[in-house]
């Protein structure tokens, strides 16, 4: 296993995420078809191929994550393209520039910048039935567990299970942001696709650590 926060580790994370989205593309599209426009899996999948390529030619985590963000911004489109793309161009600022050894704190700082950017762009709050409903609590769990001196691998595994629970708990919610909000009450009873894909991302953090 590579060191959390190292370039190799980020490679593993994005390779894992790209593979999950590729495998679950139809499922994500189906979730989006129920309450949105049916393209969420297709959108992310289109961008992740490109993001992987960009990451592979980068020398540092910081440069690599910035180019991941740019690649997502330029290929995904839609709401998730803006959020994931913009989010990672911002998040990269906290990632290592290759001068010091990678630390778990660096990973948390990076993910926190990502979360802040997503909140800044999307103005979504907890309970609006979006990816934020997964991102915020899963990241909080990761940070908290690390604070109790657990290993990164353990903390990431816990965060992954929080993410997966929170994704499922978007099911009864009525959407207040994004395309699903146009359905009003009809949006209840379906898992939010963006929450589902965010849970896949956290699952990868757990898996590769």
């Amino acid at each position, binding site marked *: 296993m590579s060191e959390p926060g190292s370039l190799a580790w980020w490679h593993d994370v994005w390779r894992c995420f790209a593979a999950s989205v590729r495998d679950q593309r139809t499922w994500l599209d189906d979730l989006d078809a129920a309450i*949105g426009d049916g393209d969420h899996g297709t959108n992310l999948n289109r961008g992740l191929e490109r993001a992987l390529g960009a990451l592979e030619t980068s020398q540092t985590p910081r440069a690599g994550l910035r180019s991941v963000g740019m690649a997502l911004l330029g290929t995904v489109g839609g709401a998730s393209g803006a959020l994931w793309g913009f989010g990672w161009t911002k998040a990269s600022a906290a990632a290592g520039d290759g001068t010091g050894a990678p630390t778990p704190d660096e990973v948390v700082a990076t993910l926190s910048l990502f979360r802040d950017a997503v909140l800044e*762009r999307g103005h979504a709050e907890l309970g609006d039935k979006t990816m934020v409903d997964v991102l915020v609590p899963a990241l909080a769990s990761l940070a908290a567990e690390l604070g109790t001196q657990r290993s990164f691998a353990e903390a990431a595994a816990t965060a992954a299970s929080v993410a997966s629970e929170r994704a499922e708990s978007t099911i009864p919610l009525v959407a207040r942001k994004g*395309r699903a909000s*146009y359905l009003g009450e009809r949006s209840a009873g379906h898992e939010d696709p963006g929450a589902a894909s965010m849970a896949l991302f956290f699952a990868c953090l757990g898996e590769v650590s």
Partner: protein
Amino acid sequence: MKKVINEVDHVVDESLDGLAAAFAPWVRRIEGTHVLARAVAKPSGRVGLVSGGGSGHEPAHGGYVGEGMLDAAVAGEVFTSPTPDQILEGIRAADHGAGVLCVVKNYTGDVMNFDIAAELAKEEGIEVRQVVVNDDVAVEDSLYTSGRRGIAGTVFVHKIAGAAAERGDDLATVAAVAERVIANVRSMGLALAPCTVPARGEPTFTLGEDEIEVGIGIHGEPGVRREPLRRADDLTDELLDRVTSDLGLESGASIAVMVNSMGATPLLELGIVARRVYQVAAERGWHIRTAWVGEYMTSLEMAGYSITVLRLDDELAALLEAPASTAAVRVAR
């Protein structure tokens, strides 16, 4: 899925090539991008107009590029908002030194991607303003949600703001005219049959033989309500009523109307809708100055239609009737 396509992944790219060639008197495709810009740029010192969104709404948006309307249209994948780098290309092409107005439909994705592009353009020293069209009365408007969607009424914004830009209004004025259109335009649509996004390959929803979706958007989404199919006049009365009561339309008002096919509903049927709109307008004392009946903001091959009403004042009417020459809208001098 039965479609006239080659590869699912090349639909938008190939279509843009063909439409750019056929629409060559009006547009050119900026190489390597999904942007259709005017074949002949407008004189420098005039405000530029950019719009765009997902593909699948043709003739929106490339069909509205040309004299008197847009300067550039940016196409995303089917029903997916375009990316900021593409929008930035459109803004660059539309900039002739007097700033650029982006006409954005109110979808989270569109708004965020246009926002990011506008920030990038500002970093390049281009003055950019945005207006967000939210004409769909089917969706409840609330501070706590993303608000209403932008649908067919957007085309009236293109036409009127385009005419203002063409006559030389400055950016603030063009934006204010666009906002006046947005404040006075409302739409609502319904679907008799869904559409199929090529990348997905399956209909976006399924309907029984006698069911319709009322309050649909333009991305193949289900509407806000499912109900039995009724007579054309009943359906039209309901849409018209929702649209005009939201607008608070008063007797004696001058209006422009759009009866827009979602794609598969033929002009023959739109004529039946238009007839009813004229009847109701006569009863209610609304004066229809212009009626656009046809395909203006489609949703691939979805069956159904939307009705748009725009309250006109003298200036909006004059700008709506000002000359335009685009692939899809032409108004003679």
